């Protein structure tokens, strides 16, 4: 098997939060956005990240592209630790790893034309490219993402949400990156446009041999595009495995609850199925529960869950679950 393009090892990301009205010398509170998370990404593979709001998906993505420093563990890109890269290696990492953002319009500078926006990574990394070539490459990539190249002089506010997201994808792909991080790229779009954008991403991935990290809180979208899925809760991995297996036979109680929350478009089956609904809210990441972070809302919680954080156990080959009481809920398998 090939070496992973991206290897995340025990990565933690914490933010300092100043308590309200604190003295300057009181220590900051630590917000644990991601804690001790490990996962590998193979070249050409798509990893789906799923979880509620506040589960650390976007933070992990920003740590991978290098805009937020990790506070523990290692992020290895092609075997090199992000935190110890030389300036040249950082430049190459910035070039090879690109990101597609959640809010399509906010991710585009309103004062720049679409052509300038798409060309920006190109003129940043290859400043000596002749103007004519920049223009032809912009036109080429616009064509590839399904935009008419004659719209090159338009401004972002003249486009629809789906078109804006295509512009964002074109900007991310113009340098032919190796890894594309998509942070909820479709959650701000209409359902019909969502499908177009997801299919576009799949086609481009197959064509360019991209690796992809795809974040969404919508399981059905993630299932459609991912090879593997990682379910996150409060910064911790709950379950990792092949997309089909995780959605068909979820083993972790949290994954089961997530899948149960996806409605089935059939009223009879929808009414008949067993739905464990999660009570309460996500606990505060400032003081996460001891042991298993999910135990406060888990239907199967035992006293022993508070003792130590459960290790990721291999359930099947390629499948890791962080719960000692895992079992397959057959009722849920239909979803």
């Amino acid at each position, binding site marked *: 098997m090939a070496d992973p393009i991206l290897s995340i090892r025990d990565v933690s990301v914490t933010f300092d939060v100043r308590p309200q009205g604190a003295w300057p010398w009181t220590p900051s509170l630590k917000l644990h956005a991601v804690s001790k998370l490990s996962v590998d990404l193979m070249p050409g593979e798509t990893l789906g990240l799923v979880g509620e709001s506040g589960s650390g998906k976007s933070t992990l993505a920003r740590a991978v592209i*290098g805009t937020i420093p990790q506070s523990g563990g290692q992020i290895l890109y092609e075997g090199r630790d992000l935190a110890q890269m030389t300036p040249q290696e950082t430049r190459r990492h*910035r070039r090879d790893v*690109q990101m597609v*953002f959640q809010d399509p319009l906010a*991710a585009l*500078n309103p*004062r720049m034309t679409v052509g300038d926006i798409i060309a920006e*990574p190109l003129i940043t990394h290859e400043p000596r490219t002749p103007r004519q070539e920049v223009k032809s490459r912009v036109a080429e990539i616009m064509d590839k993402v399904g935009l008419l190249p004659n719209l090159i002089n*338009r*401004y972002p506010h003249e486009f629809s949400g789906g078109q804006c997201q295509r512009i964002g994808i074109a900007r991310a792909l113009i340098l032919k990156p190796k890894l594309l991080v998509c942070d909820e790229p479709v959650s701000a779009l209409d359902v019909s446009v969502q499908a177009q954008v997801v299919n576009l991403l799949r086609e481009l991935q197959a064509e360019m041999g991209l690796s992809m990290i795809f974040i969404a809180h919508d399981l059905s979208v993630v299932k459609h595009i991912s090879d593997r899925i990682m379910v996150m809760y409060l910064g911790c991995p709950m379950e990792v495995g092949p997309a089909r297996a995780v959605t068909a036979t979820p083993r972790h109680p949290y994954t089961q609850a997530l899948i149960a929350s996806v409605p089935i478009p059939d009223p009879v089956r929808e009414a008949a199925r067993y739905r464990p609904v999660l009570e309460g809210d996500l606990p505060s990441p400032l003081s996460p529960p001891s042991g298993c972070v999910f135990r406060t809302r888990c239907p199967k919680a035992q006293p022993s869950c508070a003792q130590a954080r459960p290790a990721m156990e291999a359930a099947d080959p390629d499948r890791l679950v962080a719960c000692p009481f895992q079992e397959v809920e057959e009722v849920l398998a239909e979803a």
Partner: protein
Amino acid sequence: MKLAQPDAKMLQEVGDLAEVRGRSLWADARARFFRNKAALAGLAVLIGVCLFAAFGGLIAQYERDFVDFSLMGANAYQGSPSIATGHYFGVDIDGRDLYARTVQGTRISLLVGIVGALVAVVVGTLYGATAGYIGGRVDNIMMRTVDVLMSIPFMFVLILMLVIFGRSILMLFIGIGLISWLDMARIARGQTLTLKNKEFVEAAVATGVTPLTIILRHVVPNLLGIVIVYATLLVPQMIIFESFISYLGLGVQEPNTSLGALMSLGTKQMNNGTLWMLFYPLFFFLITLFAFFFVGDGLRDALDPKDR
């Protein structure tokens, strides 16, 4: 119906090749500005005042520093405004042509206002954007410096400077340049703080664009709307400031003059019945200020459509 051959060809070109020119936000704002009648009137008056300041001297019949000794002290009954004598705006108490002096006074006052606004736009915007974008300790130090400078009573310092280093236009420009950018720096910093968390800035960071380029390419163009509005409102403020200094007799020195200095002379002679000495400079002072305010309001409405 079948299209004629050239028509079909043209359609093909329009559909495939011709690049569509987009409407930028600037173009939108320009259209909104030109629909605003009050702002347009203000702009017209402003252009008129600028033309008067620039070319008004060409039709003056006398040099601004030419003293007509026969009229000195006798201007109340021999030096009233008249086309026939060539003293369009009359003569002042020292027998100098008021028209030529008003032209020069307007020129100096406009210059002071525009220099002050330019310093504010260039220095204040870059300073504020840098402080806001870098953030943290650098931001703290830079903005506390601004706070310290703001807490100094500048009128007092400027008067001391003019007394110590001699009264000159250059000193006046330096003094006005020193204070004008402080407010602008605060405004630019506040706006930058909201801008730097926008996703397009994050996208630029993730691509590896350098901080300086991000400030110049992504932050400043998005600040410019507010900066322009504030600058047009700053110009009259600077003109008033300069007039006040000159009114005190500390600003522009003879034989040069400014609207404030002319008004100062005019008020001193009010009892002599030479009201034109006050009226003409005051007229140009007022219409300039009103025009700037109207243009500023129009620009604010045009650049910030959400606030209407």
